[in-house]
C-alpha cells in the first residue's frame, strides 16, 4: 500500500451524539488500519451544515449542488472504487453510477441527520463490490442486499467526523499491531467483499481459522481503540 499524500475529501464536522459511542469505537478501530490503509489523510475542514445544504438542494433537483457534491466527494469515491476494481475506465463508470444513485435516492435521505459522505461512500464501495461479484456470478446477492446496506436510514446520526484525520492516526497505530493473517482477511473483506467461506478457499485455510482471524482482528481493534478513547 502506498502512502496517501493528498487530502481525500474535506473533513466532515458535525454533532457527535453520545448514543453513537459504539459506532465511534468501531469506526476509529478500522480507520487506524495503518497497515491496510496506511494513508495520511489531510482533512480540509468543511461544515456538516454544508453537507446538509447540499442534500437539501439536491432534493430540490439543484444540479449545481450536484457539482458541489462531486467536488466534495468525487475524489474519494473514485479512489475507493479504483482501489477495488483496479481499472480506471471502469472506475469512471462506477463513479457515475454512484452519484446518479445519490441523485435518484436523495429524497429518502434526511439532510439534518444523515451523514452524506458516509452514505455516498457506502454506495461507491457497493458499486465496486457489485462489479466484482458479478464477475464471479454472485449477482443474486448484489441485486438483493447491497441496497439494504446503503439505505439512508443506516446513516442517520452517524458521526460526521468519521473521516477525521486525528481518528485516522489513532487507528493506524492500532492496526499496525494486527498479525499478517488478521490484516489479510480484513483486506479481502474490504477490497474484494469475499465472504469468510470464500476467504478460507482463497487462503487455503479452514473456515474456522478464518473466522477466528476476522473476529480476533475486530476484537483487537476495538480494544485498542477503547484504550485510546479512554486516554
Amino acid at each position, binding site marked *: 500500500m502506498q502512502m496517501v499524500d493528498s487530502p481525500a475529501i474535506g473533513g466532515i464536522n458535525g454533532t457527535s451524539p453520545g448514543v453513537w459511542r459504539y459506532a465511534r469505537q468501531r*469506526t476509529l478501530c478500522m480507520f487506524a488500519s495503518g497497515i491496510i490503509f496506511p494513508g495520511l489523510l489531510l482533512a480540509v475542514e468543511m461544515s456538516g451544515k454544508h453537507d446538509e445544504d447540499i442534500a437539501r438542494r439536491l432534493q430540490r433537483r439543484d444540479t449545481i449542488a450536484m457539482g458541489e457534491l462531486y467536488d466534495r466527494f468525487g475524489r474519494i469515491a473514485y479512489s475507493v472504487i479504483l482501489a477495488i476494481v483496479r481499472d480506471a475506465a471502469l472506475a469512471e463508470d462506477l463513479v457515475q453510477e454512484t452519484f446518479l444513485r445519490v441523485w435518484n435516492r436523495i429524497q429518502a435521505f434526511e439532510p439534518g441527520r444523515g451523514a452524506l459522505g458516509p452514505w455516498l461512500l457506502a454506495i461507491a464501495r457497493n458499486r465496486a463490490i457489485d462489479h466484482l461479484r458479478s464477475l464471479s456470478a454472485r449477482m443474486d446477492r448484489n441485486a438483493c442486499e*447491497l441496497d*439494504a446496506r446503503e439505505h439512508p436510514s443506516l446513516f442517520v446520526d452517524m458521526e460526521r467526523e*468519521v473521516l477525521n484525520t486525528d481518528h485516522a492516526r489513532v*487507528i493506524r497505530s492500532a492496526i499496525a499491531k494486527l498479525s499478517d493473517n488478521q490484516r489479510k482477511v480484513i483486506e479481502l473483506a474490504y477490497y474484494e467483499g469475499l465472504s469468510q467461506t470464500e476467504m478460507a478457499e482463497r487462503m487455503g485455510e479452514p473456515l474456522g481459522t478464518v473466522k477466528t482471524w476476522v473476529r480476533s482482528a475486530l476484537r483487537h481493534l476495538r480494544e485498542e481503540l477503547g484504550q485510546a478513547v479512554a486516554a
Partner: protein
Amino acid sequence: MTCEELREDYTSYALGIAGDPERAEIAAHLARQCPNCVPGLASAMATVTAMSGAVKVVQPPRHLRRRVLAAIEPRPTRWSLGAVLPWAITAAMSIALLSIGLSGRRAGDTARLEQALSILNDPATRDVTFGETDRPSKGRVFVSPDKGVVFIGASLPRLDSGKTFELWVIPAKGNPVPAGLFQSEPDATAVFVRPGPVENAAAIAVTVEPAGGSPQPTTTPFIITKL
C-alpha cells in the same frame, strides 16, 4: 435469531462478508426496521465508511466531473420513451405483423409475435422501464409469471465479434437463471421474446457474453432492473 445473537455480525454484514444464517437474519431484521439492528448496522456502516476514508487517494480525470453532471441533465430523448412506449409497442407490433403478413417470409416470426402479445396481454404481467437516468441503454421489460418475458431495448452497446447479449432472470434467492440470447439490430435496438414460465423473478438483467451464452454471467450486467 435474536438481535443479541446477531450483534457480533453487524460489521461483517456491513462489509458484505457475513455468511448465512446470520446474513439472511440481519437482512430480515433490517427489512422490518428492527429498532436494535438498524442502529447496530449504522454503527457498522461507520466502520466501513472509515475504511473507505483511508484508501490511497487518486485524482480522478477532469472529464469525470462533466460526465457525472451530464448524466443528470434532462436528455432530449428521455421523455419520449416512457411517454410513447405503449403506442410505440403497438405500432412496432403492427408493423411487424403487417410485414410478416405481406411477405410471410418466416413462420417463426408470427409465433414470436403471438407469444409477445400473449405476454403483454396477461393481466399478471409486470413491466418496468429501465435506463431513464443511470444507464445509457433504455427500454422496457414485461414479465408474465406464466407466459414469459418481452425485452425491448434501445441504445444497446455495440457487440464485438463473437459476443452476444444474454438475458437473465434473477430470483429472490439463488443464482441468475439464463433466459436466452439475442443480438441487436444495426440501430442498437432489440426486441426479444422468451416464452415460458418465469418463476420467482426479482430482477431482470442483461450481460454481454461469448457467443453461445454462459451458464452464469461472466460480465457486469449493463442492464439490471428490479421488478
